[in-house]
């Protein structure tokens, strides 16, 4: 399947965020969930199983000045193989204007046996934009070895690179499960915050040092200030999805 979906959020004169563009295409179904206060909330529904080998899915998100948008998922997506062995692709392209805010908090991506999936995110933040961005990858369903999945995340802030990283798991990746990369963990993920103080609990650093200092939340979860802009990244590995979610849940 090929699909392109789009969300455009803009603030009106009163400062209320309006969705001036909302385009769904199966299997990328977007639903605006009315909220009386706070950011506009859009839920991303998987309208079909997958992503399935051969799928080319694209989601474009634009958040204007002073607009606030939160995108959430309903259920985990499971990357599944095609009989042909074709690659599936999900590309998320994001632009957030100065003063705009995006929370991207989808559900997990699960790599099923035999899948060939690429998940690529490109996020362009103007100076003064705010972001919370969560990614969680589960390597295989219960008692299953994962297929090949590459998750790559590229974020720029005010025209400069802020975070570029990619993780490869599956039979084509070299020793990804070993002590150098995941150490046998089945769940891995990160939460990126830009101009945001919603870092997860527990907090160990003094409030004034939160932006400048790393925090070790557990032996497999740390929050790190980034080098080239006002961002921080929590990186964590865990035995399973719930434990991972616990350390990647932003504070309100």
């Amino acid at each position: 399947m090929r699909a392109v979906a789009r969300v455009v959020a803009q603030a009106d004169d009163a400062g209320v965020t309006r969705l001036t563009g909302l385009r769904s295409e199966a299997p990328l179904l977007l639903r605006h969930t009315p909220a009386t206060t706070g950011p506009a909330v859009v839920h991303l529904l998987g309208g079909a199983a997958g992503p399935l080998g051969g799928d080319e899915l694209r989601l474009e998100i634009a958040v204007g000045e002073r607009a606030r948008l939160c995108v959430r998922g309903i259920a985990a997506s499971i990357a599944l193989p095609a009989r042909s062995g074709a690659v599936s692709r999900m590309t998320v392209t994001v632009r957030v204007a100065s003063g705009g805010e995006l929370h991207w908090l989808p559900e997990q991506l699960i790599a099923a046996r035999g899948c060939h999936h690429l998940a690529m995110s490109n996020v362009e933040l103007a100076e003064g934009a705010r972001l919370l961005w969560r990614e969680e990858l589960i390597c295989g369903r219960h008692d299953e070895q994962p297929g090949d999945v590459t998750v790559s995340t590229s974020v720029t802030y005010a025209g400069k690179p802020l975070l570029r990283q990619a993780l490869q798991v599956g039979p084509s990746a070299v020793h990804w499960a070993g002590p150098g990369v995941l150490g046998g963990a089945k769940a891995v993920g990160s939460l990126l915050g830009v101009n945001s103080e919603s870092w997860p609990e527990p907090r160990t650093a003094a409030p004034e040092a939160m932006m400048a200092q790393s925090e070790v939340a557990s032996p497999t979860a740390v929050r790190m200030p980034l080098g080239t802009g006002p961002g921080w990244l929590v990186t964590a590995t865990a035995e399973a999805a719930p434990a991972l979610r616990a350390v990647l849940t932003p504070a309100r």
Partner: protein
Amino acid sequence: MTSALLLLADGRFPAGGHAHSSGLEAAVAAGRVSSLSTLESFLLGRLYTTGLVTAAFAAASHHAAAHPATSTAAAHPAAQGAAAAHLATPSGAVEGGSVPRLGDMECAAGSEVLLQLDEELEARMASPATRVASRKQGAALLRAAKMVWPGDGYGLLPQRRDGVHHAVVLGVTAAAAGLSCAEAALIACYSQVTGQASAALRLLGFSPYDIQRLLAQLAGQCDAVAMAATAHAGKDPAELPMFSSPLADISAELHATWEVRLFAS
């Protein structure tokens, strides 16, 4: 150019590399590396992630220093004039050879790319402890390199009090030493793997023969990763590989909190 290659890749080259375990000490403390087989898995997992990235940045930095004009031609139309000027000069001994004297346009283009490479590499290192270690090692290498292979190329590096990232300095140093792009990438891979392996020797008390046999077995993969990295020289710095290892970041931060440790990183 084999002697220069061996000299720069030698652990005895006075750039302070022996003080760093590139994450091995943290992996040992966490109980993840305790045997030759877990060490092999560790070395390969890091070689294909952080190793590939640093090698690609070393190759790209070599290219920016040795071919300062052409490396930006795609990204910056303004640099194309400089590229043409560079090509018009009589066959300068550029290819893997000594760096010719650079024109102003070329210098500007070369330093712009090296600055971008330093920033792009910074964005690939989420861990502050890793960034600090990389910049310290870059500063130490630059001090030694300027004495060993004096040249103009170092002037293209960004001016930073905390040092330029090690892979970037390595690329520029390799160019100054008359080495090729591929050799710069190879040194990056080789130094990472052998640095981690010799740290394992000190921390876990393996037999030196076992460690050397393991390194010999991994030589082909080290070469292959270096070759893959070399293909990225001359590309837009934003397009360079960005593979990361979650445990490399996590354990570097844990390691930085220890009061007593044998290695700086």
